[in-house]
Structure formats: structure tokens, C-alpha cells
């Protein structure tokens, strides 16, 4: 539920007293598994007939990696320090511009730097601007902080179109990652090589951010979030805590931006724009700002919708928006919050009893989602799709959106599914409450 939920159990006396090699190994293996899985994943999309990786899959996975860094760095402010920023992308984008200019300078022979360290330059750029903007923004908190970051976001976005030299105007700054200098003798001319670099940097950045939560600064960021006044009376200046946290978060956002520059070989105005900031916010909320890995989960969902669904539908952004609203309304703890809520029932050993109730609500849920998607797609087809000269299909069956049938079908599925869901939800809630009461009675709530 909170950033410390994950630390509550294991970090007790045994671990803090003896961080021996056994404890280290136990904590290291999930990371190793994740890294290996990330490296194996693209092979699922490998085309064995042509012996080529799927460019689409690699780009999407790279995007997940760099956006996860970005979303987690956003959560260093929001989840950890309680600072809601509407302009976080400026730190990401400016890091990206710094990285792009650096690669161009290396390519031109003006300086020496291996490609592997370019994300670090992005990070330092992010840190520099984090210090600069943090100095202004972190004097305030809550609403005032949100407003200042919004203003800074607009300011940088406006600058991006004004200062051609650094931002390259509308066209952005193009660059070339094949700069010929590498620590490992890799050219980075293929997406697979780039993806490996992204995985490495994502692992480093996520690990460092994770460790940062366990430092005095990270803890005091939580403390000032919970009760900034009390923090003062234990000797901490909450402004200084916010400032340091903001600047560090800029460092990590900049690493994400640096990777962006390497992956796409162009950094444009979009990277500093408000929509980019909103993406971090969406990912953090959908995944759950309260747990460390929430924004990572959220990023996977958002990028899949963005890259996957956008291939099939013009309305992907609408789906992200609806998902966001549904999450904020019904699961403010995000996906990790939903998972965490099941923990007591799992500890009581009765998770299995939820399978049937889940199936019973997922069925009508799927109906209403189908109805909703059908209606949205019909609407979007009549306005955009038709102009693109495509045919409208439900599964393999082509239907004419000009007739009443598909519209009625969509409405029926949406309304019928919704009513059915309401009915089933009652039974589900009763089952859930009973299991929770049992968990409470067994004393396994925490």
C-alpha cells in the first residue's frame, strides 16, 4: 500500500543485523530473473525464417524500459515525497537533448565518450535542470508545487520552439547513435544491441532508485510526505528534503531521456511537452504510486496500449483515459494496490475460493468492455476510419457501421453486461468481505 509496504516484513532484525551473502542472494535473484526475462522476451518475436528480430517488439520493449525509468523517477516525487508534478517531462526531455547534443559532438570528433555512457550524460543534464527547477518549485508543496511545475513545463515547452540552437525547433535534434566509440566494441547499429543497452541501464537506474528509498533522504522524503511539520521538529528542513529528492529524480528522468535519444535517434519537442508528463502520471496511477514497482507495472500497461492497441485502433488514448478514471475511482492504490489487498486472504490460505467469484464478475465485465469498445470503434470509424478506406470488422465478420445492428449490439452488450456486473458484484463483495473477516479473525491482516 505504501512505499514501505514491501519493506515491512523482511527488513526486520535478521536482515538489518546480518546482511550476509545469503540475504544478499535472496534479494538479488528476483532482479536477475527479471533481467534474464527481459533479455529472453524479444526471442519470442524472433523471425527464424529471416533470422531477424522483430523491430516492432524491440522498440516497444525499449520504450517500456526507458518509460519505466521515467515513471519511477516521477514517483520519487509523487509516491515518495507527496509532490505531484505536472511538468516532469521537462527533466526527461532536457536530459534527452543533452544526450543528443553529446552524441553529435562525439560523432563530430569534438569529444570522446562511449555510447554506453551517453545515458549518464542525460542523467547529469537532468540533474542540472533538476537543481535549477527544483530550487524554484520545491519552496512550495501541495497545490502550489503542482502549479509551479505546470508553469515550468509550459515555459520549457515554449523555449523548445524558440531556441533553435539547443532544441532544433519543431524538427527537434536528430542524432546518430553509431558514434564508433564503445566500451565493449559494440556498434549499436542493430536494435537488439540497443535493446541490451536499454535493459542494462534500466536495471541500473531501477536498482539505484530502489536503494535510494532506503537511504536517510528517501526515508525523510516519506516522512515529509506524511507530516512535513513533524519532520521539522526532528531536525530536517522539509524544503531541503524536497529539493534533494527533486534533483535526484531529475537525474533518473534524464537517464530515461538519454536512452530515448539513443533508441529513437531524434529528440523533439514532444519529449518536454505536457502530454509526456501526463504519461508518467498515468503510469504511476494505473500501476499504483504507493508501491515502488507500481509505476513499472503501469508503464507496461500504458506502453502496451500505446504501441499495441494503437495499431488496431485510433482510440487508444481514450482507452488509457478511461482506464485511468476507472482506476482512480475504484482502485486508488493502482494495480499493486489491488494485488496487495489480496495478501491477507492469501496468508489465510483461501485465495482459491476467489477464483469462481472472479470468473463470475469477469464474464459480465468482458461483455461490457466489448460493448464499450464496439461503440467507441464504431464512432471512431465513422469519423476517421472510413476516411482511411478500411472495412469495419467484428472478428472475421465484416459489418456495415451505417446499419443499426452493430450499434444496437454494442449498446446491448454494454448495458446488459453492466447490469449483470452489478448483480454479480454484490455476490463478489459478500464473498470478499467474508474472506477478509476470516483473515482478520486469524490475525493475518499485516
Amino acid at each position: 500500500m505504501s512505499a514501505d509496504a514491501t519493506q515491512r516484513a523482511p527488513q526486520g532484525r535478521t536482515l538489518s543485523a546480518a546482511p550476509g551473502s545469503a540475504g544478499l542472494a535472496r534479494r538479488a535473484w528476483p532482479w536477475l530473473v527479471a533481467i534474464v526475462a527481459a533479455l529472453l522476451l524479444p526471442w519470442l518475436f524472433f523471425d527464424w525464417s529471416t533470422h531477424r528480430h522483430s523491430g516492432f517488439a524491440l522498440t516497444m520493449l525499449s520504450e517500456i524500459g526507458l518509460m519505466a525509468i521515467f515513471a519511477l523517477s516521477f514517483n520519487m516525487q509523487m509516491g515518495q515525497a507527496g509532490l505531484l508534478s505536472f511538468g516532469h517531462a521537462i527533466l526527461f526531455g532536457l536530459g534527452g537533448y543533452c544526450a543528443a547534443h553529446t552524441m553529435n559532438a562525439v560523432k563530430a570528433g569534438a569529444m570522446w565518450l562511449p555510447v554506453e555512457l551517453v545515458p549518464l550524460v542525460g542523467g547529469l543534464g537532468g540533474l542540472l535542470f533538476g537543481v535549477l527547477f527544483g530550487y524554484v518549485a520545491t519552496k512550495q508543496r501541495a497545490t502550489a508545487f503542482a502549479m509551479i511545475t505546470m508553469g515550468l513545463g509550459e515555459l520549457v515547452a515554449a523555449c523548445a520552439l524558440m531556441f533553435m540552437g539547443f532544441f532544433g525547433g519543431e524538427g527537434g535534434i536528430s542524432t546518430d547513435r553509431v558514434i564508433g566509440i564503445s566500451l565493449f566494441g559494440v556498434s549499436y547499429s542493430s536494435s537488439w544491441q540497443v535493446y541490451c543497452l536499454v535493459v542494462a541501464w534500466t536495471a541500473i537506474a531501477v536498482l539505484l532508485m530502489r536503494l535510494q528509498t532506503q537511504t536517510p533522504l528517501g526515508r525523510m522524503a516519506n516522512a515529509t510526505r506524511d507530516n512535513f511539520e513533524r519532520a521539522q521538529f526532528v531536525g530536517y528542513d522539509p524544503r531541503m528534503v524536497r529539493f534533494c529528492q527533486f534533483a535526484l529524480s531529475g537525474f533518473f528522468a534524464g537517464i530515461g531521456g538519454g536512452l530515448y535519444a539513443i533508441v529513437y535517434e531524434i529528440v523533439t519537442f514532444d519529449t518536454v511537452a505536457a502530454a509526456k508528463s501526463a504519461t508518467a502520471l498515468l503510469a504511476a496511477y494505473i500501476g499504483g504510486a504507493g508501491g515502488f514497482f507500481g509505476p513499472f507495472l503501469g508503464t507496461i500497461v500504458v506502453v502496451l496500449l500505446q504501441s499495441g492497441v494503437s495499431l488496431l485502433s485510433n482510440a487508444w488514448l481514450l482507452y488509457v483515459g478511461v482506464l485511468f478514471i476507472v482506476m482512480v475511482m475504484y482502485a486508488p492504490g493502482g494495480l499493486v494496490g489491488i494485488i496487495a489487498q489480496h495478501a491477507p486472504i492469501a496468508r489465510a490460505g483461501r485465495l482459491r475460493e476467489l477464483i469462481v467469484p472472479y470468473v463470475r464478475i469477469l464474464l459480465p465485465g468482458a461483455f461490457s468492455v466489448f460493448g464499450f469498445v464496439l461503440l467507441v470503434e464504431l464512432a471512431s470509424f465513422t469519423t476517421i476510419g472510413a476516411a482511411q478506406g478500411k472495412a469495419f470488422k467484428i472478428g472475421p465478420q465484416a459489418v456495415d457501421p451505417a446499419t443499426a445492428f452493430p450499434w444496437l449490439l454494442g449498446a446491448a452488450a454494454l448495458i446488459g453486461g453492466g447490469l449483470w456486473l452489478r448483480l454479480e458484484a454484490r455476490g463478489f463483495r459478500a464473498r470478499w468481505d467474508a474472506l477478509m473477516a476470516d483473515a482478520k479473525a486469524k490475525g493475518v491482516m499485516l
Partner: protein
Amino acid sequence: MSNAISLRGVTKSFGRTEIIRGVDLDIPHGQRHAMIGPNGAGKTTLFNLISGRFSLTSGTIELNGRSIDGLAPHEINRLGLSRSFQITSIFPRLTVFENIRCGLLWARGYRYSFWHLLGGQRALNEEADRLIERLNLEDRRNVPAGLLSYAEQRALEVGITVAGGAEIILLDEPTAGMSHSETEYAVALIRAVTEGKTLLIVEHDMSVVFGLADVITVLVYGEVIASDVPARIRGDKAVQEAYLGTEAA
């Protein structure tokens, strides 16, 4: 220099109303000093002035002979003054252990470090655990502080305050709302952790006050009407009229 806390002509007004009306008070090092007075007398306001939460309207406050004029609360804390709150003020989403450790961090020199991993700071963690044991909260060590019972939160509040080992400790009604046995335990604890330190405590429970304090100050309507050893406060006519009389009745 021999006074830990020294107030001269301290006044505080909120708008037109003057809440603190010219308080002079000297608390020597190592003294346990209790402040009593009816509700709304301005005891908490005085605490807020001494700890830097409010700024003075006029007068001076010195800690160890140093004026605290214009200092922020965290700067005053770093001079060696720590306070608790009448209305419980803890870090609700952090565990009991984390709460206590937050009370220790600055005092142990960790500052804004992002290069120390707290899990590996053995001395620090053991110190926090020792205090948790003394607070009788070891069963609740890993529970978010917001989920504690009221009495437990009050104990934690005192714990956060004394964790860093500040030389001057201000406690604002630490036992309010506790049961009789809890109060007894808390008083013993307060006595132990403030050994050799300067304590200023606001308390309504007269048995606590008379049992604990070396000197008692009576504050009524923002003015000190008496400040003396307990025996003489008990016999003071003005005090009985203004305060103790109503309390005893």
C-alpha cells in the same frame, strides 16, 4: 549561561487578541519543570514560541544563552531542543520502527544522505530498537503508525521526541487520554529518558505534575501567576483560586 531556557517579556498576539501577555521564565539546566494552567491559558502557544513554530510578537527567548529569534523549527531542533505535540503528530504511513528512526537520523549525523543504506546502519537500528522496547512497542514494531491505538500513538509521539537525545525536551500533555496504568508507565519512562536533561512538561494530571516536577509554573490567561517548588505552589492562594481550586472541586 546557566539557563537552558530563558524567556523575557514574551508576548504573542493572534490578530487583536493577545494570548501570551508578557511571560518571564528561567529554566536552569537539568531541571524538570512543569507548566500548568486552565484550558486556553496559552501553554501550547508558549511551546510553539519556544520551538519556533510561531514567531514572537515581542520579547526574547534564549536557549543556552542564544537567542532563537528568526530561527526555523529545524534550526532550533539542531540547537538541542526537541518537542512533542498535544495533538499527536507522527508519520502515519511509516512503521513504528521507521518513525523512531526518523527521530534519530539528524541527531546521528545522517543529514540528507542518499549514500547510506539504512538497513546496514547497525548502531542506528539497534538504538531505535532499544527505544522501541522501552516504549513497550516491540510487538508493533513493523506496523504503520497510523494503525496504532491512541495510547500507543501517544507513546510513539514521546518516543520520536526523545529519540535523538536532545538536551532540552518539551512535552505537551504526553499522558493525555492514557489509562491510569499507561500513565504510570509513561511517567516512569519520561523520568528515565530525561535523566540529567532539561524538561518542560505541560500536564493536567496533578499527581503526575507533583510527582515529577522540580519547579511548577502556573500560567493563567497568558500570564505567569506563580513559579515555585511544588510544595509552595500547593499552598499558594492565588493558584488555588485561579486553578487548583477548580481542578480539585
